[in-house]
């Protein structure tokens, strides 16, 4: 069957903050751009971001990009690449002012400048004292950003393919990426999009965890596409957890609740944080609280029939305090945990929040991978990745709050700029290989033909449980090794799913089966990379290797789908213009 074909200069898979920012740069320069999104672009997951965008504008106190750079490197537990981090922190003010100019409704100071909020981990003068660096639009920063960028793109005649799902990258015989294969949900039609360059901007894959703050669309499709095309995935062992998501739902309960006096209890009614952090107790930093909770659960002191969560008690604060200071939390508890915190504790569990790893890129957004025996990184021509699906790596082993929205803007723009130049020297479309759509068509026809097989919901559940249990906050070699075995079983099952509904029109089961294939790839990469890394760094906390080991592990992991093989590459400790920040012990 001959597939229809459309031709663009650039196709961008993803209409979240990063995809829209890159699209704008290209469309305003007059390039013919197509943006693909599974959902309407302004309903991308970026809409969930509330906290703000980090930039050293210095509107509240004195601030400097070098201090922001230091905080980011320290936050990353020294796994971040210092060239990319310098690039991002230096560009921060520029991209925020641009967004302001595009019409973003930032909160303001009385003198008209952008108001900046405090946020954990951001400091003045290399850790001396906290600084207010987060630029926000009330509690709708992500929402405002998406709307601002979307409107601007429409004006620039960027073409949107909404409710389309990209399935695979097309690489020619020389390895150049020459477009994508995508599926229109409404018709079931599969189309080849030929392009001079392709940008992946598909967001994170937080749905590999049972407990996740991520929306259902965050299934790591871009990671699956890259991995299937032979591109390695970088640092996939690093996932940031929030200590208190509502058990079984994932919705966040802010640290503010513990700030107001809420306490955590195990199945014995014990205030266990007193053991893990005698001074700060329930107010210790995120990773310490997450580890405490996870350990209680692992040691059998979890609550509930599955003993899989702990309790956050606030009834002792009294109805008045709860209603007055924490009304939003009462609302969330009632709606998503079915408990009234005035009378009962809220079941909570450490919840996956952010993916630090992803598709390896340089700070132009170009995808890079080692080639040949020397292992030097080389650009994969025609392919870019930006946003949460990419690993530049500015977040290293642990992301600093507000640095993700910044990452979307800086590297979205940078990729757009780089491409505008690249397109000048690469003005022609390359030929499509004759097997351009084979991989996608094989996957679809297997699904369409399968009369019996695994149930998608069950396999997805098995995957999420496996990742949550074996690659959660608390990790040991034994747990991880078992997890690797289990996830390989799950991966086999995911390749053998069957769906009853064989229709082509809005077949959501078919889409979910395709998403599951991507999720399982990410899950396997996570477990394999975490098992191999015998140290604790940032978000990876190994009980059997409690310390950071710079001698052996100051390096990025690269997981290849073929053979589920690992490779490594050095961390770039050399910034662009300033002196290197040498790894130090991290104390806050």
């Amino acid at each position, binding site marked *: 069957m001959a597939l229809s074909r459309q031709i663009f200069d650039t196709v961008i898979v993803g209409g979240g903050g990063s995809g829209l920012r890159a699209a704008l740069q290209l469309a305003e320069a007059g390039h013919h751009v197509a943006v693909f999104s599974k*959902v309407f672009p302004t309903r991308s997951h970026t*809409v969930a971001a509330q906290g703000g965008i980090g930039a050293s504008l210095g509107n509240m106190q004195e601030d400097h990009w070098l201090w922001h750079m230091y905080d980011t490197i320290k936050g990353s537990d020294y796994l971040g690449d210092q060239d990319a981090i310098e690039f991002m922190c230096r560009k921060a003010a520029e991209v925020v002012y641009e967004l302001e100019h595009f019409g973003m409704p930032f909160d303001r100071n009385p003198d008209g400048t952008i108001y900046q909020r405090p946020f954990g981990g951001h400091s003045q003068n290399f850790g001396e004292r906290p600084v207010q660096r987060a630029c926000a639009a009330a509690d709708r920063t992500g*929402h405002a950003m998406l709307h601002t960028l979307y409107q601007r793109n429409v004006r620039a005649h960027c073409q949107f393919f909404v409710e389309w799902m990209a399935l695979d990258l097309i690489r020619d015989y020389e390895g150049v990426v020459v477009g994508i294969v995508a599926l229109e949900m*409404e018709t079931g039609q599969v189309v080849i999009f030929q392009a001079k360059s392709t940008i992946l901007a598909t967001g994170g894959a937080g749905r590999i965890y049972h407990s996740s*703050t991520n*929306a259902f669309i965050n299934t790591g499709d871009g990671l699956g596409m890259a991995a299937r095309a032979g591109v390695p995935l970088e640092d996939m062992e690093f996932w940031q957890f929030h200590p208190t998501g509502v058990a079984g739902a994932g919705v966040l309960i802010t640290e503010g609740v513990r700030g107001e006096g809420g306490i955590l209890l195990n199945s014995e009614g014990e205030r266990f944080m007193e053991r893990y952090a005698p001074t700060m107790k329930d107010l210790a930093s995120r990773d310490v609280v997450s580890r405490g909770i996870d350990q209680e659960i692992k040691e059998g002191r979890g609550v509930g029939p599955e003993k899989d969560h702990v309790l956050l008690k606030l009834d002792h604060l009294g109805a008045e305090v709860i209603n007055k200071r924490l009304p939003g939390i009462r609302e969330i508890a009632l709606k998503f945990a079915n408990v009234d915190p005035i009378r009962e504790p809220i079941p909570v569990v450490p919840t996956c929040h952010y993916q630090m790893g992803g598709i390896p890129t340089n700070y132009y957004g170009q995808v890079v991978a080692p080639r040949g025996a020397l292992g030097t990184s080389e650009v994969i021509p025609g392919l870019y990745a930006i946003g949460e699906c990419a690993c530049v790596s500015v977040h290293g082993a642990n992301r600093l709050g507000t640095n993700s929205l910044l990452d979307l803007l800086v590297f979205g723009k940078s990729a757009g700029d780089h491409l505008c130049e690249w397109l000048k020297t690469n003005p022609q479309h390359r030929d499509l290989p004759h097997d351009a759509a084979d991989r996608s068509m094989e996957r679809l026809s297997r699904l369409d033909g399968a009369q019996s097989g695994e149930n998608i919901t069950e396999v997805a559940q098995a995957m999420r449980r496996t990742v949550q249990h074996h690659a959660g906050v608390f990790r040991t070699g034994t747990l991880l090794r078992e997890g690797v075995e289990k996830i390989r079983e799950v991966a086999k099952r995911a390749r053998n799913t069957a769906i009853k*509904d064989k*229709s082509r029109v*809005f077949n959501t089961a078919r889409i979910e089966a395709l998403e599951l294939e991507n999720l399982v790839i990410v899950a396997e990469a996570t477990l394999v990379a975490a098992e191999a890394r015998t140290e604790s760094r940032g978000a990876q906390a190994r009980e059997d290797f409690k310390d950071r080991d710079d001698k052996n592990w100051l390096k990025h992991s690269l997981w290849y789908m073929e053979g589920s093989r690992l490779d490594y590459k050095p961390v770039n400790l050399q910034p662009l213009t300033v002196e290197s920040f040498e790894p130090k012990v991290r104390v806050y």
Partner: protein
Amino acid sequence: MTATLTREQERLRWRSRRGLLEMDLILQRFLDQHLTRLTEPEVRAYDALLQLPDNDFLDLAMGRKGPDDAELLPVLEKIRQS
């Protein structure tokens, strides 16, 4: 979810995938309970709600605000109670 959904119902199910986890969870419960039994006017009202930005829809679903259009209320009540 059974395999007997109509195409229209499948379309509504996909459009109920949102950018906010809170909305995903609320709408999933609503769909599990009501999708196959929605009347024509209810489908129209639900479709209109799905057009809203996530944050506005969340305010309505949590009962923090009422809808501008009274026609939306019956479906909204079902969403709130799911």
